[in-house]
């Protein structure tokens, strides 16, 4: 047995865009245990529902996390709409699906870039982020914002996407799909990337289930769960495959996520075809009362919203269970027995979103 050292990792660390602190207990160069301490981004926004009007709170919900901002707003709206019995118009459901899938494409491209950066592959990082800019341009064109666009509201959406704009979006994807295929090829076939990722941090399907992993993490270990398949918004109308892999290592997670980018583009294409005409929102009157859950699939995995209203304009309770929180337990388990040099890549493959986790 070697000498034990404790190495602090974070809260400010070059590989982490967000602060999380891990105490890595090392035996020589190998991690034996990782002890997390969190709270650097804790704001306490769940309690803010008691001070902010439930309609106004959509904006706060969108700022739980700036990466999957749209989906947070959408999840909150879905939960509140359920307590109030609001039926969202079909066109709004399709528009929500389009923006949600665009968010997935942008989030996965961003993550691929960050992973490349963590591996020291700068040019690949640049390529991923260059392609991501096209998606942000679509957001800019359709909503006016690049990352946070406050387009979801209770009872529908604030903006419409015209047929011409939709065609432009599809043209953009025709243009960048080749580029995404190219980076996928680099990630899966390049010897240096494969050397860093293959076999690293393998998680068995059984472990993934018992540790409660969600999203691409669980799917890479062969647990084929996807909240979209349960059917919300316009997902029952479109066809898509649930991407899974069996290896459970970092490379499998890359493959699952790149596969999901193409699935998401496929969903957007189908939505463009199937989108019915009609209103994009419905009037919401009254106050929420009672409890409701909403469950949806974010880029990082399944997220759960709970709201409880008491018939006033302030909700009584709001709770989010975010995907990174669910995946942290699996990460701590995977870190055991990993070389210190592999820790950054492994931490990144869960696609950590600390501001979701700590809220």
């Amino acid at each position, binding site marked *: 047995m070697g000498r034990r050292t404790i190495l602090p990792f974070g*809260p*400010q*660390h*070059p*590989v982490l*865009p*967000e*602060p999380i602190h891990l105490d890595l207990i090392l035996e020589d160069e190998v991690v034996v245990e990782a002890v997390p301490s969190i*709270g*650097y*981004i*804790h*704001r*306490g*926004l769940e*309690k*803010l529902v008691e*001070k*902010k009007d439930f309609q106004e709170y959509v*904006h*706060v919900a969108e*700022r*739980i*996390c*700036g*990466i999957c*901002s749209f989906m947070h707003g959408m999840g909150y709206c879905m939960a509140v709409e359920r307590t109030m019995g609001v039926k969202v118009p079909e066109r709004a459901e399709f528009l929500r699906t389009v923006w949600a899938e665009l968010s997935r494409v942008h989030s996965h491209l*961003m993550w691929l870039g960050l992973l490349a950066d963590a591996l020291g592959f700068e040019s690949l990082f*640049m390529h991923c*982020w*260059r392609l*991501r*800019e096209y998606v*942000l341009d679509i957001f800019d064109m359709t909503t006016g*914002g*690049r*990352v*946070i666009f406050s387009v979801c509201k209770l009872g529908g959406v604030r903006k419409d996407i015209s047929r011409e704009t939709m065609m432009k979006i599809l043209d953009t994807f025709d243009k960048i799909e080749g580029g995404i295929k190219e980076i996928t090829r680099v990630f899966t076939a390049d010897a240096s990337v494969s050397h860093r990722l293959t076999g690293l941090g393998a998680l068995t399907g059984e472990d993934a289930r018992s540790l409660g992993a969600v999203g691409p993490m669980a799917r890479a270990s062969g647990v084929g769960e996807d909240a979209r398949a349960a059917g919300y918004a316009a997902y029952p109308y479109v066809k898509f495959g649930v991407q899974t892999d069996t290896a459970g290592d970092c490379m499998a997670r890359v493959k699952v996520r790149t596969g999901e980018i193409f699935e998401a583009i496929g969903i957007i294409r189908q939505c463009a075809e199937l989108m019915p005409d009609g209103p994009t929102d419905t009037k919401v009157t009254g106050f929420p009362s009672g409890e409701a859950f909403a469950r949806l699939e974010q880029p990082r995995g399944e997220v759960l919203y709970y709201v409880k209203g008491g018939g006033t304009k302030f909700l009584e309770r709001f709770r989010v269970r975010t995907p990174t929180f669910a995946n942290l337990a699996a990460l701590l388990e995977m870190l055991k027995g990993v070389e210190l040099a592999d820790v950054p890549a492994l931490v990144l493959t869960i696609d950590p*979103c600390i*501001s979701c986790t700590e809220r």
Partner: protein
Amino acid sequence: MKYAKKSPWILHYDGSSCNGCDIEVLACLNPLFDIERFGAINTGNPKHADILLITGAINEQNISVVKQLYEQMPNPKAVVAVGVCAATGGIFKDCYNMIGGVGEAIPVDVYVPGCASRPEAIIDGVVKALDKIK
């Protein structure tokens, strides 16, 4: 054409932001905005940094981290607060764990507006901060 007097090295720290401004700070590095053409590099080491870019507000847990990072940076140095949260606490101002803007912890030289701040605005803020570290 005017030349910048210095090629600043930038240290980015996420206070308690929602990630929106963070990814826009990182977007400054991508080929479209390419802040590296000014010689600016995103460094992870406070001892190498000239400009501290902080996104998000100050809370009970991170105030000591922010102060420490600022103290570790050599003089001359500048602080750029990115986004409304970094200016005042923004939308999270009334949350129980919030202290307020970055100004509560360390002196700020440039405030960049926006929620989320756009990369153009962030680059502009960095260029303005260059005047402070002549």
